[in-house]
């Protein structure tokens, strides 16, 4: 049996001996099980055990990262030597030396204990649940003449165990279980074409999370909704309208248009060749980007959340972060690398999705803070509008300014009342245009899970994208392709 604590210590000692001014070593074990159901038939079941060590060193201002799953003393020492050698070889081409900000680092153990371990759930019970949910969607779509020709359901259960130590005193061990459920549906109406829907649930707890999601009810509702949209949906209005955006749409908007552009590494250009930069600069703090009722938060510390953690990969204690406060840019997401440049403190945004990935700035659980309006209060004074409850397609430019969200479940609003389904209403607008159009925020905060992509190599990080129903005034919708 390998003593990982001893290996981690050996790595730090070696890095120090070889001249590293900073080093950080992370043992990470990701274990999990998944099952995929394709059109009602189990396609494949899978298990994964991905365990290894990743480390970072700074030598003369040059940053090196190394990773291996050869968990022997010789393997780890060789990795340290290689990472230092690569960092030294690159140093003549380093233009901005890397430093780490000084922080109060954690010495702690964090463990989330599942009430029901996935291992204790009978495998055929999992399959039966998925089959029942799949069947519910098919049955619910039929009465409107819609066939769900493509249905992909995936349920995943995983546990992430990390132990991180840093050369300046950080030492944090954590064990966090995560369960998630993803679905993809395509429905076809013989005369009115097809539509597509994907969504995800996820939480940091045990099987009890899956039980709480009521997947049969969720899929049944999705099937019925898609059928109604396909069979009865009308094109979106072409004139100016007010829009009620559902929490699922708002959660995604907050993630894409507030979280990403407020990642300090993007602002500084570190992701410039891949995920891009930002419409904001380091001097944008205080800039007005939305109406006064807009408050956007990212908070890793929410119990049960999909993006939950209490310390980041640099051993900095996590806290709630106000990204936008009363419509103004309030705070960037920072790690120790960017905080050293800005002369501020890290707010614990460094995350890595596996041992072979470098910690970079990531969101955790991003949401618009709820207001005090009920749904009835939000809708009652809309004379002419559209309620876009959820979405089917979206994208955004790499400066996070020009974005598009196409609704799946949507309804007309006339004189304060919900009306007929609307097909493919597209919100295509700028970040500032969107947030400034918000005039009221609902109290009904809801959560959805997502896997956020960033980094090179790519890292898919578990996050929540959450929001209440929100009212926007005077928009023009596009994208009708019914």
């Amino acid at each position, binding site marked *: 049996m390998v003593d990982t604590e001893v290996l981690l210590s050996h790595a730090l000692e070696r890095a120090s001996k070889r001249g590293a001014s900073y080093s950080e070593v992370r043992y990470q074990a990701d274990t999990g099980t998944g099952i995929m159901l394709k059109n009602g038939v*189990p*396609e494949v079941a899978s*298990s994964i055990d991905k365990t290894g060590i990743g480390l970072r060193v700074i030598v003369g201002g040059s940053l090196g990262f190394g990773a291996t799953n050869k968990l022997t003393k010789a393997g780890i020492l060789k990795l340290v030597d290689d990472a230092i050698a690569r960092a030294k070889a690159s140093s003549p081409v380093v233009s*901005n030396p890397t430093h780490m900000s000084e922080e109060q680092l954690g010495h702690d153990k964090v463990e989330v204990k599942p009430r029901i371990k996935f291992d204790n759930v009978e495998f055929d019970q999992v399959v039966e649940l998925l089959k029942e949910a799949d069947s519910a969607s098919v049955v619910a779509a039929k009465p409107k003449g819609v066939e769900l020709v493509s249905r992909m359901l995936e349920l995943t259960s995983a546990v992430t165990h990390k132990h991180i130590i840093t050369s300046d005193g950080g030492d944090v061990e954590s064990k966090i279980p995560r369960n998630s459920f993803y679905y993809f549906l395509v429905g076809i109406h013989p005369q009115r074409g097809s539509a597509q829907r994907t969504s995800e649930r996820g939480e940091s707890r045990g099987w009890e999370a899956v039980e709480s999601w009521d997947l049969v009810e969720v899929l049944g509702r999705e099937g019925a909704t898609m059928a109604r949209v396909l069979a009865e949906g009308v094109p979106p209005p072409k004139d100016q309208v007010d829009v009620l955006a559902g929490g699922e749409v708002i959660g995604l908007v907050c993630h894409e248009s507030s979280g990403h552009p407020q990642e300090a590494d993007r602002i500084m250009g*570190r992701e410039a*060749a891949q995920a891009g930069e930002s419409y904001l600069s380091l001097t944008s703090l205080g800039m007005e980007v939305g109406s006064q009722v807009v408050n956007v938060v990212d908070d890793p510390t929410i119990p049960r959340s999909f993006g939950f953690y209490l310390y980041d990969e640099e051993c900095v204690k996590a806290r709630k972060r106000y990204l936008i406060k009363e419509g103004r840019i309030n705070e960037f997401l920072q790690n120790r690398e960017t905080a050293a440049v800005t002369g501020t403190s890290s707010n614990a945004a460094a995350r890595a999705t596996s041992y072979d990935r470098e910690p970079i700035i990531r969101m955790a659980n991003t949401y618009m803070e709820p207001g005090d309006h009920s749904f009835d209060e939000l809708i009652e004074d809309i004379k002419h509008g559209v309620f876009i409850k959820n979405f089917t397609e979206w994208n955004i430019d790499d400066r996070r300014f020009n974005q598009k969200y196409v609704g799946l479940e949507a309804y007309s609003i006339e004189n304060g009342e919900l009306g007929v389904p609307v097909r493919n209403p597209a919100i*295509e607008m700028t970040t500032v245009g969107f947030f400034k159009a918000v005039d009221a925020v609902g109290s009904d905060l809801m959560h959805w899970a997502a896997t956020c992509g960033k980094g090179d190599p790519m890292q898919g990080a578990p996050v929540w994208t959450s929001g209440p129903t929100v009212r926007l005034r005077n928009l023009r919708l*596009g994208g009708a392709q019914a």
Partner: protein
Amino acid sequence: MKAEDIVEFAVKKAKSAGATDAVSQVKETNWAMIRFTNNGITVSKVLKDTSVDIFLFVKEKRAGSSVSNLSERAIEKAVLDAAKMARMSPAGGTYAPLPKGKFRYNKKLLRIGKVIGRIERLPGIVKESIDSARAAGASRVAGSLVAETTKLVQRSSSGVKGSYKRTMYNLNVRAFADGECTGQFATIANELDKINGGEIGRMAGDIAKRALHPQPAQPGTFDVVLGPMTTADLIEEMAGASSAFYVDAGMSFFTGKLGQQVAPSHLSLVDDPTSPAYPGASPFDDEGVPTQANRILTSGKLGTYLHNSTTAMKMSVKTTASAGLVIPRPFSLQISAGNESIEDLVSKVDDGLYVTNNWYLRYQNMRSGDFSTILRDGLFKVKGGEIVGPVRGLRMTDNLVRMLGNVEATSSKRYWIKWWEVDTPILAPAMVVRGVKFTKPTI
């Protein structure tokens, strides 16, 4: 244990655990990456890794395990876990036994590319690309350079016995003339000598410089010239849609179109991993079947879907050696070249756009091919067959099937492309597409 011993052990254990079929792969990876930003290197990465994959059938019931702990005990546990999951899965799918070996593989594919003994040359190539992009007019340069050597060893219960080594180098450069005026280009090759950092940097820098002082673009429907980067992204989507898994799942816009004319007769698309000169080349697929050139589009007709044994049996055809044990996929794509230069292609457009790059392609509907993607980096207005100046702020909002049918011409010069948005190496030309729809934000 050595890689060869691990795969033998895993397959043997799977059979004794009740598997009707089993295949195991060990992949040893030696990988280095340099990332650069703001004209300097930001991080140098190294990975030394070995992973073991086991995939087994209990007739039609299938399960896989992936494990990074190479001890006998851990591998045995992974096999037993997979066997248990497969046994407990309900029946109902298709059972296609793994293809029977022993196969003979192309010896030229057993050692693909050239490993450089020392990778100290990488920072120099990065510097060269930064310097040439700046010389071309960029003020800031970012990107990544990857060197990867992989050894893959495979065994199956049906007699497959194969191994190969492959080396690949991948350079991606993005140049900034200012915050919004950017240019990007990328390349991939099996030999480091074929990665021309100076040339890729110059191309990115040149696009960025020409993109300076853009005017707001107007939405509408235009004829376009798509540069090789955008062609690569859109064609990769089409190759993905030819995977029989997605066709069978009803998720592909090529469903029901086999044998049909889906593109003009001058256009062909082949997935060809059979030459050691091609990035992505491989002697065999994940079922151990010797690879072959698969003509996805032949003279504009959809010639084949990409199959593994299971999808092939479902559709009563032979495997195309494209496994993916669950999802068949392409290895190394090539789009047919035309006879004209990129300048000649631009001269065919009276009133339109020249698109150099895009990202964030998402489907409104994978089944129909309705999608949109954001245009990024240099975007240029074309008038009277000439580029008249840079524009910005558009989204391509169209249908991939319709666009494929409207490809009018491809350039004679093609480029090997792979970057963040394009996973499969593609030899891509520029192409002219008629009547493409573009939208922009309303507020």
